[in-house]
């Protein structure tokens, strides 16, 4: 991605046939047709190595973490903390202590709202978001702003779905305390210029939170280079398990944050009247964590690094080129987002101008093609685009150009079902 440290080496093509063999689910059929899974922005599939890592943890090392002196507990703790260290090195985070495990991106963002923003924002302060945000990076700020009387301001998009960076100076001001922005739009696919936005935010003294749900899966992410304070993402959108989320926090901010949930694991000392908190990151991780999912996350990072994040990025751009070209052959489609395949990650949102996206989704499903149809948890953006809903096809490491062809043929078949011209 444009916002990451580029690798000096030339990208290598991904051997899709070999990758596919690692994903058991991809060999199944849907309605008698081979599965063409194009709903990767909702959640990807998992390779055998991740499934096996989770099963193996339960078979051989299962115990609770950070308590007990027995061998299994020690192994489980090592595995859990090892996964934390692995995330830190994967995303170039200075210390594993900056990595907080949550349930998902939504919980990560809510954690920032609860533990940092609630303490630091006052009536009259402002939070800058964009009109493209997923509900997970909008609703928590609406709740907070209603509670403490701060104001939400929004960066708009241009006709191609790029953020209006030229309007940053108008939207940001001395009242802005936080800029919360997605790394990549889950609807438009646009890769946002985070360093530029972060730099503008710094100049008015605001902190920066990046919703990386669609960032980490699609290319190299370097937390240190992005120059943001908080970065949230969901490993299940990058071959990892469902049920574990990540929040990266700048180390300097950790100490000025309140705990999130209260309970076991997050305390230093407890009396009947009051408690003191464990050091970060454990202060933010109350209760038994999802240890097996952390182990699966570790395995998924192995898998991603073997493929190479730069190669994954290259693969998606290559699919984008073909996908956009083929979709443009169908004049009844409206295609949203940037026209340049280099400006977007491997997802495209579109509408057939005469077929509702749910009907399209149903017809495609009968052809074995899984896409997302609806508002994509971005209702304000749907309104901004002037539509009620849209269809989204999102590609990943195991998808290739032949699946673009299957998609196109299914889109043509839908026209036939509805008695429309092709």
């Amino acid at each position, binding site marked *: 991605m444009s916002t990451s440290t580029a690798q000096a080496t030339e990208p290598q093509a991904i051997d899709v046939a070999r990758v596919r063999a690692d994903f058991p689910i991809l060999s199944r059929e849907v309605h008698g047709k081979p599965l063409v899974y194009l709903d990767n922005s909702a959640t990807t599939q998992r390779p055998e190595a991740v499934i096996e890592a989770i099963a193996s943890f339960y078979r051989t090392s299962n115990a609770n973490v950070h308590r007990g002196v027995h061998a299994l507990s020690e192994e489980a703790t090592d595995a859990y903390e090892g996964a934390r260290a692995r995330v830190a090195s994967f995303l170039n985070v200075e210390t594993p202590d900056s990595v907080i495990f949550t349930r998902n991106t939504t919980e990560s963002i809510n954690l920032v709202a609860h533990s940092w923003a609630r303490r630091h924002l006052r009536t009259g302060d402002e939070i800058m978001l964009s009109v493209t945000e997923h509900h997970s990076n909008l609703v928590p700020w609406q709740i907070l702003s209603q509670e403490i009387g701060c104001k939400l301001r929004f960066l708009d998009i241009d006709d191609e779905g790029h953020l209006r960076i030229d309007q940053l100076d108008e939207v940001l001001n001395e009242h802005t305390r936080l800029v919360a922005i997605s790394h990549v739009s889950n609807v438009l696919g646009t890769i946002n210029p985070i360093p530029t936005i972060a730099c503008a935010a710094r100049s008015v003294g605001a902190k920066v939170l990046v919703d990386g749900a669609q960032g980490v899966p699609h290319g190299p992410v370097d937390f240190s280079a992005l120059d943001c304070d908080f970065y949230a993402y969901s490993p299940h959108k990058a071959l990892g398990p469902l049920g574990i989320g990540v929040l990266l926090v700048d180390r300097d901010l950790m100490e000025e944050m309140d705990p999130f949930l209260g309970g076991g694991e997050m305390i230093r000392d407890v009396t009947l009247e009051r408690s003191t908190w464990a050091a970060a990151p454990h202060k933010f991780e109350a209760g038994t964590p999802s240890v097996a999912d952390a182990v699966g996350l570790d395995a998924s990072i192995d898998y991603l690094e073997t493929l190479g994040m730069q190669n994954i990025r290259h693969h998606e751009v290559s699919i984008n080129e073909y996908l956009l070209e083929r979709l443009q052959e169908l004049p009844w489609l409206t295609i949203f987002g940037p026209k340049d395949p280099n400006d977007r990650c491997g997802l495209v949102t579109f509408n057939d101008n005469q077929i*509702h996206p749910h009907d399209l989704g149903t017809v495609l499903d*009968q052809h074995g093609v899984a896409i997302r149809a*609806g508002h994509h948890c971005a209702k304000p953006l749907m309104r901004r685009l002037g539509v009620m809903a849209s269809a989204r096809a999102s590609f990943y490491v195991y998808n290739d150009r032949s699946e673009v062809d299957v998609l196109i043929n299914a889109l043509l078949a839908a026209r036939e079902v*509805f008695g429309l011209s092709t």
Partner: protein
Amino acid sequence: MQGLDDLYREVILDHYRTPHGAEEIDAPSVRVEGFNPLCGDELVMTLDIDDGRIRGLHIKPSGCSISVASASMLAQQLEGKTVQEAVQLKESFKAVMRGGDWPSGTDPGDLEALEGVKRFPVRIKCALLAWMTLEQALAQHDPELVSQVEADKDIEVRAY
């Protein structure tokens, strides 16, 4: 494809292309909005009920072919009917969508074509949207008419 042909029968597509109830009515006595938060489909229903009879019915749908066609069929069938007949048809249709059969002696008319939806469980809520909205509208007209407005987890209805 067998399943798709069952779902998108010609009569459904006809209703989708030119829905009944499209004309606004002058003096509505009830106005209700129904929507499906999961998929974003919504419709506004206005009724002119006078002396126990539906004199006028206007539906402004915004959604997929199934929800629009179902709303259109509702408008087609209920115009001029008594509120009692409307309650009965609504109950029958809900029961059919949930796996039951049409009561003997009932002529479902075009609604029969929506039975194909039953093979697509995630789309049943699309077919039910107009009918759940009708339920609320009738209850609003006369609370004694509808003993209980059913709470459906997929569909929200409110006075408009």
